[in-house]
């Protein structure tokens, strides 16, 4: 190789690096390998494909190309932190860790580094209080909203009263799985239902004891906070003991297609929450197919498009893109910084008109974010698995949580966090 060639390559490298530095950098902390890959892969595909669509269709966001930096976490907290450390220097604008464990580790780090973090429907619930957690956002809904939406749905199904009913929570024995317990205890006291807790050890491959207990105690309803193999085994075991599947409701991380397909017909009637609608006919999917997949730029093999977790990943990307656009609008520059994106997230407003304009009409609820409320509206829908058709059917419109209960719990928990960490609550 001649000196001239080497010089040319070096100069090209500098130019490429210079170009890259001007991009909008979005890290994707994905997990496409290991025990949780079946959930991580479709989410990441949807997340990346939407940004690729924006690049192909709109030239990026506000004229700035989006550059995705993917880092494999394997759903492992240590690796997730390593990914954060490895990608933040690239100019990362917003993190979506897709893991409650990683989120808990990143909250102090992103706060110190002043990079916003979006934990959509997972993570630390009390981070909805933006006055204590200015760099953390968990809109459009959080775990406590989910628990409350479930109870509100059951209230509606039972003539407005759950008095004397028994509700069991089958949960992953981890910080994630324990998140809804406080809310359900509070709601139990308010609505008069008996609440029992049934823990499942990680990873949840063996749940015989738990389902024998359910068979003995015969609760009226079973709610589930599961992830990974725990979901598939729980659905199978519920079917095995002939538990009425219409009385078995998982949260939105226990309601993907792969959670129910292994149980075959036995899963028919199982319900789950969702924070966004599933509609394979949304125009945005046609755009992704023609401009991303057919152009050979798909993040995966294209088989996940329209599925529950693909749609959620795409929805998450849309919320990130809208926040960036809002930041550009507020600050009048296209090449925004993480701090500006935080401002955009705090001023975010998602309307039906905007979702329709984006080709994803009513994919999520309308909501707006503020300094005081980083958690959005908290609305969720209930969907049911139709095993013969092989798809989820939305049973309800968006159901609101019981804000009076949730807000009190958030204030209590975030207040305790603020006291422990010497934080004076306030808006940035």
């Amino acid at each position: 190789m001649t000196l001239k060639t080497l010089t040319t390559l070096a100069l090209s490298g500098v130019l490429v690096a210079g170009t890259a530095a001007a991009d909008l950098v979005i890290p994707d902390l994905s997990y496409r390998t290991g025990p949780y890959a079946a959930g991580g892969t479709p989410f990441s595909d949807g997340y990346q494909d939407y940004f690729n669509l924006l690049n192909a269709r709109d030239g990026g966001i506000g004229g700035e190309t989006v550059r995705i930096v993917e880092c494999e976490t394997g759903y492992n907290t240590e690796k997730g932190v390593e990914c954060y450390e490895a990608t933040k220097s690239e100019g990362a604008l917003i993190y979506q860790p897709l893991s409650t464990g990683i989120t808990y580790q990143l909250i102090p780090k992103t706060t110190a580094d002043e990079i916003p973090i979006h934990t959509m429907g997972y993570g630390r619930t009390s981070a909805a209080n933006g006055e204590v957690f200015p760099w953390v956002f968990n809109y459009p809904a959080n775990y406590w909203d989910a628990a409350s939406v479930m109870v509100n749905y059951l209230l509606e199904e039972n003539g407005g009263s759950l008095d004397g009913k028994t509700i069991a929570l089958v949960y992953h024995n981890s910080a994630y799985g324990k998140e809804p317990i406080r809310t359900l205890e509070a709601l139990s006291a308010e609505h008069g239902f008996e609440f029992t807790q049934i823990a499942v050890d990680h990873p949840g491959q063996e749940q015989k004891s738990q389902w024998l207990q359910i068979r003995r105690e015969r609760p009226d309803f079973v709610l589930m906070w599961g992830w990974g193999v725990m979901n598939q085994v729980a659905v199978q075991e519920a079917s095995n003991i002939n538990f009425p599947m219409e009385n078995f409701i998982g949260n939105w991380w226990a309601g993907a297609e792969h959670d129910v397909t292994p149980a075959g017909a036995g899963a028919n009637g199982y319900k789950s929450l969702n924070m966004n609608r599933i509609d394979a006919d949304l125009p945005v999917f046609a755009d992704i197919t023609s401009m991303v997949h057919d152009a050979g730029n798909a993040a995966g093999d294209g088989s996940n498009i329209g599925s529950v977790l693909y749609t959620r990943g795409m929805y998450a990307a849309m919320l990130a893109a809208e926040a960036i656009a809002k930041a550009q609008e507020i600050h009048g520059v296209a090449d925004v910084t993480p701090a500006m994106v935080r401002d955009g997230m705090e001023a975010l407003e998602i309307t039906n008109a905007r979702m329709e304009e984006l080709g994803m009409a009513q994919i999520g609820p309308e909501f707006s974010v503020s300094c005081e409320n980083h958690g959005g509206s908290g609305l969720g829908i209930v969907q049911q698995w139709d095993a013969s058709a092989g798809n989820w059917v939305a049973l309800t419109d968006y159901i609101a949580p019981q804000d009076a209960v949730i807000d009190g719990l958030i204030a209590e928990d975030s207040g305790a966090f603020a006291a422990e960490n010497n934080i004076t609550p306030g808006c940035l």
Partner: protein
Amino acid sequence: MSADFLYGIEVVLNGLMAGVMYALVALGFVLIFKASGIFNFAQGVMALFAALTLVGIMEGQVPFAHIINATFGTELHHFGWEVPAILAITCTVGVMILFAWAVQRFLFRHLVGQEPIILFMATIGLAYFLEGMGDLMWGSDIKTLALGLPQGGSRWIEDATAGLGGDDFYGFFIDKLDMVATVVAIVLVAGLIAFSQYTKHGRAMRAVADDHQAALSVGISLNFIWILVWSLAGFVALVAGIMWGAKSGVQFSLSLIALKALPVLMLGGFTSIPGAIVGGLIIGVGEKLFEYLVGPMVGGATENWFAYVLALLFLVFRPQGLFGEKIIERV
């Protein structure tokens, strides 16, 4: 009889059958450890790989399709045919034999004479390699194992026993899949014992297990025996993969079933096939009974904790396990 007592019996019965499922995984560890002194960390991943291969063959999936498509711009996914279960199982056994040969040829042949800890570390590397290989070959999505294995509780047993303890007793719940697993485990253990007792290669295997150098001196090929043992462990892994995969679908968390085998091995001993079975049964019944009786008082999810604490107690008082060979070091 009170309903609580009968439910206790139900817990014991289900614990026995869960123990059989644990023993199925533990058997593969025992086979390899007994013959070669290697604690095979990759046994759980072998179960995953075997089950993935079985489903892939049955569904006519193109192996390495993702790499082929990315390299050549093709859109291959399936061959367009489906393979009958029996033929697919046979082919998978063939793949596991090939895997056994490759492990000996490319890994352990180069590690002859190394310390056990080195061999153990090599199996850790093998586990990661095999997990990645399974992902590349067959993808990471959850696959349904359509072998027609029965699922759900036995209605006949439930109906026949309902009401024995009054209106509060709903009959014994016995999972049909667990019953099948029990029968399969019995046949498998009987087959392994018959093979090792009554066949030439089985006796050679036992000779190698007793003393490598003495076996070598009478003309037994260590290389062949180790390939044979790894092939048998591969077959056992396939059986375990099928039984566990039928419960949850074939997915990467299947590799974690090895975690359930470790306390079984500590209890039963690393060198005893009957020990794996008895250890599995003790762990299965013990953890289920503990969860039934004590779990509600301490918040539940005690099963893993109980299994490992019980194994720890055995390590303290009987390090070789119930059936393991006593370690005698002459100075």
